[in-house]
């Protein structure tokens, strides 16, 4: 979970590093801690540290973590030679290491040699059948080869054993959404909300999926979850505010033919409140686009 202060700190360090100021090591540590994916910058500056033997020895035992980080960033930027050299250095230092074995298999994956990578992962799994990272890499390989159904199968088997892994549930939900299997995606997001109810981003994603599914009960539930997101973020989530307006107009459209009892009473107040909040936020942040917003909202209310 990246908080706002951490994000500003990350951006500040990134600017500093890119413009030639110091602080490269702090930036790399922060990227590792927050688990963000900034491969080009990590590669460029990590290599500058590694190539300079003075700076490299100043790191002490952290040097090997840096090798690992730079190797993965190099694979992401498709600099496979650099990755190979980093892994060779790591192998020299730590022969017979499982972690280095995983990196080698990762390199095979990055090169696109799927069968060899599969064999490497299976042999690693024989030694340690309960290794979470390797199971997840098999899912990632299935995803990379364009076989989402195989990825789903592997991920389901993994989640039967490791039910508490949030990242895996999130990945499964995203794969389902990409395949348009929205009911299953909704189930995954429900699991996520159950385990981490204070994270507004899960409520938001769940509401999005419900809104996409459509149908009156789903729209009412979606509106509830957008409202929960707004509650949890203190009104700062523009997407949730827009979601409430859209849900409100969609519900009004669907329930036009029904009798008055089914109409929910909260609708008009909630929608107008969300609309005023949106207008206020647009006035503050993007006053040029304000009239776009007002015309869009007007269309929603009419239709």
């Amino acid at each position, binding site marked *: 979970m990246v908080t706002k202060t951490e994000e500003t700190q990350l951006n500040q360090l990134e600017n500093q590093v890119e413009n030639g100021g110091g602080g490269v090591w702090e930036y790399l540590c922060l990227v590792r801690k927050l688990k963000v994916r900034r491969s080009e910058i990590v590669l460029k500056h990590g290599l500058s540290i590694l190539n300079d033997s003075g700076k490299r020895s100043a790191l002490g035992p952290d040097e090997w973590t840096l090798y690992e980080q730079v190797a993965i960033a190099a694979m*992401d930027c498709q600099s496979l030679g650099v990755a190979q050299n980093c892994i060779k250095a790591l192998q020299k230092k730590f022969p017979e290491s499982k972690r280095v074995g995983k990196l080698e298999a990762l390199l095979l994956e990055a090169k696109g040699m799927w069968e060899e990578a599969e064999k490497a992962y299976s042999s690693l799994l024989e030694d340690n059948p309960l290794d979470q990272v390797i199971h997840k890499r098999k899912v990632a390989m299935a995803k990379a080869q364009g076989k989402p159904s195989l990825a789903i199968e592997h991920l389901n088997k993994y989640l039967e054993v490791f039910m508490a892994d949030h990242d895996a549930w*999130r990945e499964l939900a995203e794969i389902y959404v990409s395949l348009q299997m929205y009911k299953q995606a909704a189930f995954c997001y429900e699991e996520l909300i159950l385990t981490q109810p204070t994270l507004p981003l899960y409520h938001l994603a769940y509401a999005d999926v419900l809104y996409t599914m459509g149908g009156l009960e789903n729209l009412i539930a979606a509106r509830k979850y957008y409202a929960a997101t707004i509650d949890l973020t203190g009104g700062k989530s523009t997407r949730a505010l827009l979601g409430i307006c859209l849900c409100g107009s969609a519900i009004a459209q669907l329930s036009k033919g029904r009798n008055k009892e089914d109409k929910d009473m909260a609708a008009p107040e909630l929608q107008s409140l969300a609309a005023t909040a949106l207008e206020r936020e647009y006035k503050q942040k993007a006053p040029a686009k304000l009239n776009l917003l007002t015309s869009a909202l007007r269309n929603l209310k009419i239709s």
Partner: protein
Amino acid sequence: MNLGFVVGVFGVLILSHAAYSTIQYRGLLKIMEEEFSRPPINVILELIIGLALCMWAALTFPGKFLSIHPDSDENRTVSLPDNSDFMIFNHRGRLFPPEIDMKF
């Protein structure tokens, strides 16, 4: 040591002095065989001063208080971590090798 710590020590000393005076006062009353209803006025004043000093020190000494609102700037989640366990290298960035020729 910073001011908060000094004031805190001072407040604790005043409170202990007030306690000692009350005990002495009780002993005096026992000799004079009178009832002990409440400590003398100066001890009460001392107690109030000691309370104020200790409270001020307790609030200043620990330093910056952390926010507990879930939507304050410190605690607000802006984005979830990119799932690096499921990272694939098969993306479109593969066709854009980095401009600088990296050597290692």
